[in-house]
């Protein structure tokens, strides 16, 4: 279980507990966090669950794998700390994680 803070583009914050093994995307969907759309349901196909991992957490979360990296690199509003939240698995180590959400997922 990890407490994750999602910060929307307009500054609205959501703090939710997410079970280990779920993705950071699922944590948002399960708690009605606006700003994560997740159309493909976690298949790494759509990039509508794009987030920016807080700088303090980026190393701990780790880097994206190849397909995800390619998607992020060419996403609108891409940043060095971009990840697809469906590809980040929640563990105890991520307790306190902070992710920022982009203005748009399109």
């Amino acid at each position, binding site marked *: 279980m990890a407490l994750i803070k999602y910060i929307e583009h307009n500054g609205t914050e959501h703090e939710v507990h997410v079970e280990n093994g779920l993705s950071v995307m699922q944590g948002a*969907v*399960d*708690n*009605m966090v*606006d700003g994560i*759309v997740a*159309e*493909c*349901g976690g*298949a790494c*196909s*759509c*990039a509508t669950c794009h987030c920016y991992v807080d700088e303090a957490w980026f190393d701990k979360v780790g880097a994206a794998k190849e*397909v995800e990296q*390619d*998607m992020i*690199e*060419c*996403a*609108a509003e891409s940043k060095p700390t971009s990840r697809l939240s469906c590809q980040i698995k929640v563990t105890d180590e991520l307790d306190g994680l902070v992710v920022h959400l982009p203005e748009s997922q*399109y």
Partner: protein
Amino acid sequence: MTKQNCIIVGAGHAAAQLVTSLRQQGWEGAISVMGDEYFLPYHRPPLSKDYLSGRKSIDDILIRPPAVYEKARVRFGLGLRVEAINRTDKTVLLDDGESISYQKLVLTTGSHVRKLPVPGTDLPGVFYLRAIRDVEQIKGFIGHGKKAVIIGGGYIGLETAAVLKQLGMHVTVLEAMDRVLQRVTTEEISAFYTRVHMEEGIEIVTNAAVSSIEGGKNVQKAVCGDDQEFAADLIIIGIGISPATELAEAAGLDIDDGILVNEFARTSDPDILAAGDCTKHYNPIYDRHVRLESVQNAVDQATIAAGTICGKPKPYNALPWFWSDQFDIKLQIAGLSTGFDQVVVRGDMANGRSFAAFYLQEGRILAVDAINKPKEFMMGKQLITAKVEVDQAKLTDEAVPMKELLS
């Protein structure tokens, strides 16, 4: 004053999006979702992929867990059908005779599978693939070394063929037209998928219109014309879907191969909205009316409908996109290719399993089919909406990063 009630008919992707969007955008009244399946809204694409293969369970494919609906105060009526809409009284009539009033009604009725009009489709071992219950029954007929015949070489048919092959079955795909995927894509992509499926050991037979299905206790074969027979322990029919418009039609709403809605997801009755597969709507990017069979459309149009209901209307102008996973191939499609006058390929389409086909009209990209090419898909989306004239020399040169095409 009586409490406001928003009734949603159909419990699929659009409904799951609507209920949370309604709450996020400020709807305070009751929300009721009526569905004819005994399941909370679930992801339908995995039915022909990870759910069929057994890699995912029902819990894994629920779009949202029950707790979300509890938090959003959503009432579900599952396993029931809405028989009629009374627009004068603003009520819907359920199949058990109960009638419920609404202030706002949203039709997210989705689509029906097209039925194959030949004898024998009711034999045990013959299925369509649209719902969880279909897959649960299909699973009883899957077996290593057994024979599966897929009728219809569309995306559902090919995805299903790939999974059944991976589960050790002998798989034959029968396509009535002269190439697979004819209705949905170009000759180039059809040729690619034909090659891949043959490389994987699947038999694809084109110009094979099934005339009957035969068997005894269980299905035994599919028959095409006079002379061709294909032995089968399992037959899956995937020959397309049609929009579920009966309810809207009987209520007198405007229909044209789908429930006609405007850019705010309103039907011809201002208190009735519709979203997803069942609708036909105007797309400003392509300047024409379209009916889309996709998760993207269900989710995005549902969000638009919620905004309209909550008095915060925003016009729908999303770029359509689709995906399909078969074997090690991730296909991502952005845009609609209808009307293209040129195909530009980036990568090796003839031999490899990684390339992108861009469909151009007067030098501008209308659509892209990206096969194991996520960058081309992502940049393709931006290039389509930007409507820029692309440099074709750069587009075909894999040494030039996709990003340079937008600058």
